[in-house]
């Protein structure tokens, strides 16, 4: 009886010790992967996003220097958990994309005749959408939204949420049945200007590094399939 108790205690202690060790290793592997990707990006002089979903923070970096930080109010996810790694932003989409103004060349004489507008027609932060999405490779989508104050945008957001509450589970089922890659993350920014700032800064083709602690639950079946 005594031996059994000792053996049980040893086994329990070993299990308790091993679990965080595996978790730590996983985090270290992910961190290493991200650092390796970042080391490659910093050589290019291009800015990139570092999205830390666990800390609810998005950073804009360039050559390892943090230029701007935005806090994430909350995030939800459907589909396959987004693993830590480096992803290429393929497309940024918005319902209301900001439009650039085309300058019409005007001769000096005509200019003098026209009354001067005090507000120049230019593209500014306030023209950026507060709700948009980033498309990545492998069926990964990150949607951004921000709290709306006015009644009509709020109503639109509410209807959109209902639509997504139907569409996303269906898409999850469809992707699961077809074994297709599908990840949909919705990030809510703390302020509208934060979301607009992210849209302003993001450029198609730029790299996005995602760090996320995931509880990996690898089933025996999956292990067998992987080992075979």
């Amino acid at each position, binding site marked *: 009886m005594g031996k059994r108790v000792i053996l049980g205690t040893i086994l329990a202690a070993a299990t308790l010790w091993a679990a965080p060790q595996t978790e730590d290793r996983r985090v270290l592997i992910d961190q290493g992967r991200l650092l390796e990707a970042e080391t490659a990006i910093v050589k290019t002089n*291009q800015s990139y996003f570092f999205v830390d979903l666990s800390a609810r923070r998005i950073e804009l970096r360039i*050559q390892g220097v943090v230029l701007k930080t935005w806090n994430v109010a909350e995030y939800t996810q459907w589909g396959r958990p987004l693993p830590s790694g480096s992803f290429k932003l393929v497309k940024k989409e918005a319902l209301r994309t900001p439009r650039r103004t085309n300058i019409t060349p005007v001769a000096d004489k005509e200019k003098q005749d026209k009354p001067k507008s005090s507000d120049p027609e230019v593209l500014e932060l306030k023209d950026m959408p507060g709700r948009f999405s980033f498309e990545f490779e492998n069926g990964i989508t990150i949607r951004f939204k921000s709290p709306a104050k006015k009644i009509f945008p709020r109503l639109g957001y509410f209807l959109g949420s209902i639509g997504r*509450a139907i569409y996303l589970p269906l898409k999850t089922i469809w992707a699961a049945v077809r074994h297709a890659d599908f990840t949909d993350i919705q990030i809510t920014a703390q302020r509208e200007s934060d979301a607009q700032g992210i849209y302003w800064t993001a450029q198609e083709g730029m790299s996005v590094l995602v760090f996320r602690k995931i509880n990996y639950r690898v089933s025996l079946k999956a292990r067998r399939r992987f080992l075979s």
Partner: protein
Amino acid sequence: MKKKTFILAAAVVAGVFALLELGGLALEIFVYSKPKVEAVASGVREITAAELNRRNKSFRSRLSVYKPFGLYIVVDTAGNRLYLNKGGTVFREVVVSCGSGDVLDEPGGTRSWTFDTPRGGFAVQAKLVNPTWIKPDWAFIEEGERPPADYNSRIDNDSLGEYALGFGDGFFIHGTLYTRLLGRNVTHGCIRVGDQDLKFVFESVGIGTRIFIY
């Protein structure tokens, strides 16, 4: 009768909704919780946490080589701000004007210009006192004029202010006559700074000082 039908319809909708949510969630738990496991050849020794730590430390030190030491400039094109940084601490914030994002097409021609401030990592390449602007073609086309063949007609001694910092491809951090537009996105891609701030920025930085624009 109508009330019953309404309740029934509402119940059906709620049921379908709940089924979808539960179905999706169940699939997420049972199917997607299995991660894509990377292939590792059998018999290969697992890397220990200590080794991983060492590897990550080596990556961090490689990354730190690229980080600027000393003074550097950060420009926020959305907020129209320029920050002078030293060791990661901002010691001067300046209101500036950045690119308007407007587009100019050459009438009857094929050329087109987009007036954005370039983004990314740059360095101060030239420091100029009382700079002269050699007006490019778009400056004439925008005014409805034909670009002159004569070089002297392109010289403008007033527009750039007292100082200019060149950071490549014809882009400058320079002074402005339009101080009331500081804080707005109104330029053709250059970064306009007010006179007093410009003097301070100009005297603080040297050739090779890093500029990060976002």
